[in-house]
């Protein structure tokens, strides 16, 4: 197709919920009353919340219209770096909606919930195998939650050794959740710079690692899309000082079946099922952030744990050293079902193939756009590559301008201004589910934008033009916050 993918079409304006509706309307079928009314004492009763009364058609139209203002992976390419926006197979949605799963109460006796328990038991085994670790907990609800769980495990480990430590090493390329999770557990994050190659140098770690340092949080592949090739050596240094190695596995999509973190010195890591394992991101969640550990950390894992006794699956809370619980129940089971289904659909070969193609797509984009955009670290990348707006400074066009202009061309922008070590970073993660055709169109669009930046920069400054709204005033939004209507 010659023309750009981005076009404009008819969509509907739609007011806020409470600007619609009429008292007495209803969009909910009230169940029959087959019992008498036993009014609650006046003083306990309130007026009830002020909700608009809407009919079913009101609600359906409202959210159908809103949905049309949104862009998802099903709409087009969504190369949001570090987010692994791969296609979410539709069959996984079907499985998670099966009545036996969707309708299950979390406190059902094990004898009446074998299906879910078996799924969780097997799923833990699969993740343990994929990461090369020894045990897994599925309780964390997202990546950051997994990080915190990991920190708690490390803390419990040191405590059990009687030695408490105050610091933890966190590279400057780390995602913001890393230092935040460490801090939440009382650790002082110790920032270390990555070297000129964009990775951690053995020396840098050797320099800071000491007996008061609980360990290190490594993101591998890191957020520059580079493999931390010194990680083994770094692990040795950390271990030598009695520390533990935490791996942020958010970028696992690059190395499934290629690297088992457990085999290269990692003691504890989290996975993002909503990234690597294809569960949809839902406009911000729910996700799931299982944590995989080596033997020495297993005693501290959250309870209850699913164990198999003879042919039955049971829940056991009998782990005296456990850190306790990080979620009320068993974690985001509905999300696990989708990731479990994904792994079963893929099998070992296709998981590896997925990583290989994810890396292929990223390197293909890197090589194809290298002449067009400034590439701070010109090395083979993993699942994503990071450019900058260095070369556009002359046209006084920024990363943001290019990102917004991409929308008019029909693509979701990459992650921008992250990682912080690259100024005006443009972090592109295509994932393996983008075909060569689609990637070629993306490359074409980006090249077009860069030449637009020279010829007609205002096209970029005024972008986006095709979306429902133009650029929004985020400054006023933050200065005079209006958070509820």
């Amino acid at each position, binding site marked *: 197709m010659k023309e750009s993918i981005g076009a404009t079409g008819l969509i509907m304006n739609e007011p806020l919920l409470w600007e619609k509706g009429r008292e007495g309307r209803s*969009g909910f*079928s009230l169940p029959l009353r087959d019992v008498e009314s036993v009014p609650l004492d006046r003083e306990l009763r309130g007026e009830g*919340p002020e909700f608009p009364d809407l009919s079913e058609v009101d609600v359906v139209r409202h959210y159908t219209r809103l949905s049309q203002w949104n862009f998802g992976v099903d709409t087009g390419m969504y190369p949001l770096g570090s987010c692994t926006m791969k296609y979410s197979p539709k069959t996984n949605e079907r499985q998670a909606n099966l009545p036996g799963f969707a309708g299950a109460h979390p406190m059902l006796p094990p004898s009446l919930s*074998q299906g879910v328990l078996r799924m969780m038991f097997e799923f833990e085994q699969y993740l343990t195998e994929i990461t090369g670790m020894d045990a897994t907990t599925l309780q964390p609800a997202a990546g950051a939650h997994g990080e915190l769980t990991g920190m708690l495990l490390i803390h419990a480990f040191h405590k059990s050794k009687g030695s408490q430590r105050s610091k933890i090493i966190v590279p400057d390329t780390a995602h913001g959740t890393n230092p*935040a999770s460490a801090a939440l557990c009382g650790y002082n994050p110790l920032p270390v710079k990555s070297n000129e190659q964009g990775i951690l140098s053995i020396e840098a770690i050797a320099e800071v690692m000491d007996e008061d340092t609980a360990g290190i949080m490594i993101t591998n592949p890191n957020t520059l899309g580079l493999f931390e090739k010194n990680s083994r050596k770094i692990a040795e240094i950390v271990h030598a000082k009695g520390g533990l190695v935490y791996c942020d596995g958010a970028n696992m999509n690059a190395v499934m079946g290629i690297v088992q973190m457990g085999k290269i010195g990692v003691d504890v890591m989290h996975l993002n099922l909503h990234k690597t394992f294809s569960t949809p991101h839902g406009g911000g969640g729910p996700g799931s952030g299982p944590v995989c550990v080596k033997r020495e950390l297993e005693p501290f894992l959250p309870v209850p744990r699913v164990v198999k006794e003879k042919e039955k699956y049971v829940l056991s809370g009998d782990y005296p050293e456990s850190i306790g619980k990080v979620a*009320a129940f068993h974690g985001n089971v509905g999300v696990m079902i989708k990731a479990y289904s994904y792994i079963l659909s893929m099998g070992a070969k296709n998981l590896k193939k997925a990583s290989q193609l994810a890396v292929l797509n990223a390197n293909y984009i890197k090589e194809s756009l290298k002449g067009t955009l400034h590439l701070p670290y010109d090395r083979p990348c993993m699942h994503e590559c990071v450019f900058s707006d260095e070369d556009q400074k002359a046209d006084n066009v920024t990363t943001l301008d290019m990102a917004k202009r991409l929308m008019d061309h029909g693509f979701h922008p990459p992650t921008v201004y992250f990682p912080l070590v690259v100024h005006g970073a443009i972090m592109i993660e295509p994932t393996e589910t983008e*075909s060569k055709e689609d990637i070629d169109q993306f490359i074409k669009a980006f090249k077009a934008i860069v030449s637009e930046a020279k010829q007609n920069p205002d096209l970029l400054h005024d972008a986006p033009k095709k979306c429902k709204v133009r650029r929004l005033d985020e400054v006023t939004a933050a200065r005079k916050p209006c958070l509820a209507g």
Partner: protein
Amino acid sequence: MLYLPHTSDEISSMLQVAGVDDLDGLFSTVPDDCRLKGDLNLPEALTEWELNDHMETLSRSMAVSPEYRVFLGAGSYEHYIPASVSYLLSRSEFVTSYTPYQPEMSQGTLQAIYEYQTLAARLMGMEIATASHYDGATALVESLLMAIRITKRKKVAVSSLIHPLYRQVVRTYFEPTGLEIVELGYLENGITDIAGLDDMDDLAAVAIQSPNFFGCIEDLQAAGEKTHDKKALFIASFTEALAYGLLKNPGAQGADIVCGEGQSLGIPRSFGGPALGMLASRKKYMRSLPGRLVGKTKDLDGKRGFVLTLATREQHIRREKATSNICTNNSLCALATVMYMASLGSTGIRELADLNRDKAEYLKKGFKNAGYKIVFETPTFNEFVVEFPNGFKATCERLMEKNIVPGLSLAPYYPELTNHYLLCATETKSRDDMDALLMEVQS
């Protein structure tokens, strides 16, 4: 493979551009001693149809309605969900989008979350609410930590009638940082004993759940006043959000922060998750709130639009100084909830809440008439505690064989309450369902 679009021709031409000979060559930066030699040990790939059979089998082994009558509540409630909500929630524009970092392309999610924040705040009687948290338990922890940040104190008092599992999560979060938790006991009428507060000092917050874990409706007003006398923040939590269709809301009773579980509002139980952590507060604490917030603003043409805002509180800007480490939250669950609340409306939520109360009262009366002890006389919403005679465990077994799950044994959580069970009846339990249970416990 369905999810891998590359043909071998495409792969080779792309490899050429990438400047390597084969897929393996792409991993040149991965040291050889880091590479996995063999293959991962995982089951053979299943076809879509084998997967359907497998999952169908697992699903059928679960005890759910209509085959089973489950009277379990205790933080996860069975409520009807309109087909319209399930359909709307399946629209891929909502499902397959990321966190709305690029507002121009995400106005659907953003307006919906703004609407959620608004209705959620109204339900809880607060000025503002966050975009969502993982679940009721983490929302409670975040609330306590928020109070600790605001008051710069290190001690919190927590009612022993807050969901036991929530309290366990609080303990887990607090353990490493040496923050102190005091638990408030309960009175024999089934509500929190707040007398103890008198001789406690430097409290950052007092947290009370209503309806509490026994289903009893707490006197938030009184607790709030006592708390404020102590210059501490009053946190009201809940596990059954629907109760506030009927009860006086926490805001009206002096709560500074309100948090709880939103699963009741249109989210399937799914063995406990994903659910929805709800958190709201007075506006003055806005900048101490954890997690995402959506705000209203204008675009270049002055047209109304919505954005993520106050990001300076968050980890991606503030890193270790952030108000929370949360990034991905439970956005789609918040969407389910706002769709559900919009379907109910003021009129509907009131009637539905009334009905829940009345169903439980019917069951309660049934047990009374059957000669069982309704342990706590404080009014309840849709859950209550019954004391059964010794050896009720056997009855339980029998009931389960008849596909009835009577309720939750409290002994594991409150050792003093042997033979005490927590039972729940929502609008999904018909009179017949309840009579069936009563019949069984009589015989």
